[in-house]
């Protein structure tokens, strides 16, 4: 589990695995073999209002994606809970702005051996998740990789869930 909290001084948004995630989102037309290995096999983006009542949509997306990826029921259950907890890190934080005017951007990127989920939202200066709270601790137990980053006024939680065996389809 990683906890990478950074300031806002760096330009440009990238997840904790920045270059890889950025490469995946902006794939060249003809990637070479090395680049191709960094590209997700499938990607899903969903943006929900920053409102507790809409987190069920992110959970539903996680469940559906887990089914599409042929994950086992335990992995799907854990993924659903992890996405919920990642959203809750923002929505239940006392410093997170109220109201649905802003959104939580959830990105699911499936690679051959792992699924990478990011939840991203604008956050006020100094915002950081409660890493001593039960939500963060549960998240750490649910996923294989957990990271937090703040950059350019946005906070990003990155979850990495490795598959027990390479997917067959």
């Amino acid at each position: 589990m990683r906890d990478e909290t950074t300031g806002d001084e760096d330009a440009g948004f990238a997840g904790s695995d920045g270059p890889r995630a950025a490469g995946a989102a902006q794939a060249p037309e003809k990637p070479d073999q090395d680049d191709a290995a960094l590209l997700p096999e499938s990607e899903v983006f969903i943006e929900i209002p920053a409102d507790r009542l809409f987190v069920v949509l992110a959970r539903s997306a996680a469940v559906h994606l887990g089914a599409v990826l042929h994950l086992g029921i335990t992995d799907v259950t854990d993924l659903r809970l992890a996405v919920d907890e990642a959203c809750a890190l923002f929505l239940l934080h006392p410093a997170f702005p109220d109201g649905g005017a802003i959104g939580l951007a959830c990105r699911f990127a499936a690679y051959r051996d792992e699924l990478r989920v990011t939840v991203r939202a604008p956050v006020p200066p100094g915002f950081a998740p409660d890493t001593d709270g039960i939500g963060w601790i549960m998240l750490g137990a649910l996923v294989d990789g957990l990271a937090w980053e703040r950059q350019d006024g946005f906070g990003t939680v990155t979850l990495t869930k490795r598959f027990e065996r390479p997917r067959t389809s």
Partner: protein
Amino acid sequence: MERFNVTTTLSADRHTAVLAIAGDLDLGASERFWPRLERLLAGSSEAVVLDATSLEFLDSSGLRVLLRAARLAEGVGTALRLVAPHPAVRRVLDLAGAGRCLDVRPSLDEALA
């Protein structure tokens, strides 16, 4: 459509209040669930059973409510038992080590015995 429902009944001997919770106890439901649970625990029941047999999802916000209820029950001398057979709910309880704080039973019959 409500994704979280609560039904309150009394046991046959009328000594135990049974609060059946169903659906998703998540961050959208936990905040409004607490006042109802608090009122029930502050009442005169000797025991309260939270029947989560039909609860399909629990997250840390819902768990916080359950732990808060356990503390309140202990403070007012009410026995609080939780029926939680659903694997997704048990998973959260296990991850958080909540079994140390909550009296968890596998079935309603055992909770009322």
